[in-house]
């Protein structure tokens, strides 16, 4: 009888897990309009490509020398690979978590549909967590698929247990890194849910998401040199090496594979401790926060008036900017509010901003470490493009998001109302980007650099930033023809593989080209004025071209008959 009840529970758990997995695939990776599989395939292929790039890099770095390499060279190659792959796993888990933040607990739909069924609410929670973890496992496995073959091969001919244990060492260390990051973050979210009033939590959440992106992506850039791990057993590890998460799991992999790190056992111990604590804190936190989340999910529709994020500066900026054009103002405000309030859009925006911020932080910290801060009073060529990098990444995020529909059912209103053409939408988006990206960046740039450098340099740097941002904005907005978030399908997802290459090229051009151009301009007022004139001309050309561009004429329903007759299909 007991066995039968257990079997039924297991069957229900499987049904629920499958249901949540399907829902996750459709809701999270799709737009609800049938392009689900292509979005998931795009995400997986990008991860696979990343894994292959790391594997190829590994072969190129060490492969040609392997035949002649010493054992220590092989060990170094494997260690380096483990470190990069562990850091990548942590970054992937952090990014995944921020996107799946809302999916950690059953949502309002789950509560209304499932909690009235005669099944345990803990089973619902367990199935939800299981499906979220299942997708993470899939992503991590795909990212590591190429390296799973290459890394053990790299260690080959080193002999002994080191080779045979490479595969389990790899799998265990990466799996534990993934679990540590996932449950650690889950515990943090649960703690915030428990401790903060819900209204405060809504305010803290975007900042937390941004922080997680920066920390988890940043740890890829900030990783201390591996030499710090190879100090003799008689010496203490540095504090940085002792507490750097990716080193714990690199040390663990080395320890399992019977490797050569003198402090491998201590690092492995830290890894076990971290994973155990993270799982414990995560699970307890989730269990404690679950009733409160359920209560909020159900009561929200009954009574509670939750505060929604507002952005008064944007309202203040947008209204005067677009006051002469009510439809453009309406589109601008709509875009701005969706950007701020839609969870998936916000997470995507924060991913772009987090990536750029992590890069900027790495550059700044590298500079500070090398110069002791003594040269902060003068412009440094490699720091000059950082504001522009941040601005362009944020603009690209806005552009990518605007091509992602949020609600097919709700977009009918834009089809009913005559809002004009693409020019009006681009005008509205200029206002939005100005409000959310360029204006705050320019103000910060002006004030910060006036404090660090002097007023003249600060003004010049800010003018350079604003002009190049405006040019980049016109370029980014050139194909915008439909009201943001109302497309029939997510157009950018299909082109993501192509866009990825363009983004990388744009990033390289921005960081190197603009840095050197601006640095040379700062020393010569005449050259700067010439650049201003040339830049303004470029912006003007792009702007006028955009203003003249019109969407290809659609066929009105009333014109359909004459259009079809015009095709002369019978001739």
């Amino acid at each position, binding site marked *: 009888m007991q066995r039968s009840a257990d079997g039924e529970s297991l069957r229900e758990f499987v049904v629920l897990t499958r249901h949540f997995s*399907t829902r996750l695939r459709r809701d999270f990776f799709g737009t*609800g309009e049938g392009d689900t599989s292509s979005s998931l395939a795009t995400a997986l292929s990008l991860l696979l490509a990343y894994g292959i790039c790391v594997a190829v890099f590994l072969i190129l770095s060490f492969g040609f020398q392997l035949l002649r390499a010493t054992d220590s060279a092989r060990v170094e190659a494997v260690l380096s690979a483990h470190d990069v792959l562990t850091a990548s796993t942590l970054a992937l888990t952090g990014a995944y978590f921020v996107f799946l933040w809302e999916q950690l607990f059953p949502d309002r739909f789950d509560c*209304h549909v499932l909690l009235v*069924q*005669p*099944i345990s609410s803990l089973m619902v929670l367990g199935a939800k967590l299981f499906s979220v973890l299942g997708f993470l496992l899939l992503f991590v496995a795909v990212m590591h698929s190429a390296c799973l073959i290459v890394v053990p091969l790299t260690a080959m001919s080193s002999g002994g247990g080191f080779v045979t244990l490479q595969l389990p060492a790899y799998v265990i260390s990466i799996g534990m890194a993934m679990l540590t990051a996932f449950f650690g973050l889950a515990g943090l979210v649960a703690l915030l849910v428990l401790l903060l009033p819900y209204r405060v939590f809504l305010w803290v959440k975007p900042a937390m998401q941004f922080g997680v992106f920066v920390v988890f992506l940043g740890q890829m850039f900030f990783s201390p040199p591996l030499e710090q791990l190879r100090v003799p057993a008689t010496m203490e590890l540095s504090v940085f090496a002792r507490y750097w998460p990716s080193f714990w799991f690199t040390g663990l992999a080395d320890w399992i594979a019977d490797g050569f790190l003198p402090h491998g056992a201590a690092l492995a111990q830290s890894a076990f401790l971290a994973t155990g604590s993270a799982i414990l804190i995560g699970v307890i936190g989730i269990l404690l926060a679950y009733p409160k989340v359920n209560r909020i999910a159900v009561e929200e529709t009954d009574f509670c008036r939750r505060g929604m994020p507002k952005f008064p500066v944007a309202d203040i900026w947008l209204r005067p900017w677009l006051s002469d054009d009510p439809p453009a103002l309406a589109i601008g405000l709509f875009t701005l509010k969706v950007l701020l309030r839609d969870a998936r859009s916000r997470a995507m925006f924060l991913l772009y901003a987090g990536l750029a911020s992590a890069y900027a932080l790495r550059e700044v910290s590298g500079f500070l470490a090398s110069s002791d801060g003594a040269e902060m009073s003068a412009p440094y060529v490699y720091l000059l493009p950082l504001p522009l990098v941040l601005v362009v990444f944020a603009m690209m995020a806005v552009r990518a998001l605007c091509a992602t529909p949020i609600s097919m059912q709700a977009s009918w209103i834009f089809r009913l109302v005559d809002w004009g053409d693409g020019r009006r939408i681009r005008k509205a988006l200029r206002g939005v980007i100005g409000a959310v990206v360029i204006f705050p960046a320019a103000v910060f740039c002006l004030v910060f650099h006036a404090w660090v450098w002097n007023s003249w340099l600060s003004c010049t740097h800010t003018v350079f930033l604003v002009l190049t941002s405006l040019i980049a904005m016109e370029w980014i907005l050139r194909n915008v023809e439909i009201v943001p978030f109302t497309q029939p399908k997510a157009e950018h997802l299909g082109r993501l593989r192509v866009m990825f290459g363009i983004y990388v090229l744009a990033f390289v051009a921005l960081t190197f080209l603009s840095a050197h151009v601006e640095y040379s301009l700062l020393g010569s007022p005449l050259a700067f004025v010439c650049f201003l004139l040339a830049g303004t001309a470029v912006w003007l050309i792009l702007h006028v071209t955009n203003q003249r561009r019109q969407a290809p004429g659609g066929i009105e329903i009333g014109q359909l008959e004459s259009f079809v007759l015009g095709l002369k299909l019978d001739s």
Partner: protein
Amino acid sequence: MPTHGLPGSAILEVRSLCKHFSGIPAVADVSFRINAGEILGYLGPNGSGKSTTVKMVTGLLQPSSGEILYRGELVQPGTSSFKHYQKYIGYVPEEPYLYTQLSAGEYLFLIGRLRKMREVLLREKIAEGLRQFGLWEDRYSPMASYSKGMRQKVLLLAAILHDPDLVILDEPFSGLDIATALMMRIFIRKLAETGKAVFFSSHVIEVVEKVCASVIVLRWGKVVGAGTVDSLRTLLHRSSLEEVFADLVELSDSETAASNLLALMKG
């Protein structure tokens, strides 16, 4: 506090149910009982606490105080006794909470499996239900493409698949076409005839008047009137339930409100 409802063997009994949100009462001291074969109407204007009561009775909301009894046994929310009670209820929520990416068949199958129904029987019931509700042609389409009425039919089907003792309906006719609404009205009466208890929450007075034997009227979370439809009419010397309702909830002058709206439209 008196318990409203007809005397008899109660399937569901609610005693002094209260719900406070941040100290503000949404439902205050509500008591009623529903017997086997009875349809109890739960009337009230928007925001009067109808859905909050329904959610407490189904287990979605934890009552601030009060008791819920199923067949005379106390069921405590959050305990196994409540899960046992949930096996015998069918619920149609006010909002069409559905996983719209699923087809109607997939959704009903999910609910049936979670209610431990045998697969063969479940598939038969789903097929027959979809045919009866005119959803057979759309059985493979995701519910995102369904009209409001079609979604409501799916919710109704999901509520009755497992042959519940107690059917809890929160605005069940919302979005239904006239023919389906008529069919549903007859179906609800037949449900009661077979001994099921029906808790019918609505603000559509005409439907409640035609379907329910007894009625509870709610205003600002409190019961302001209860009894059979006839007894309420007699008590308040009114010819229709609509007039009784207007008296009990002290509706504002509809003519003036309509004129104000027209003035607003013209600016």
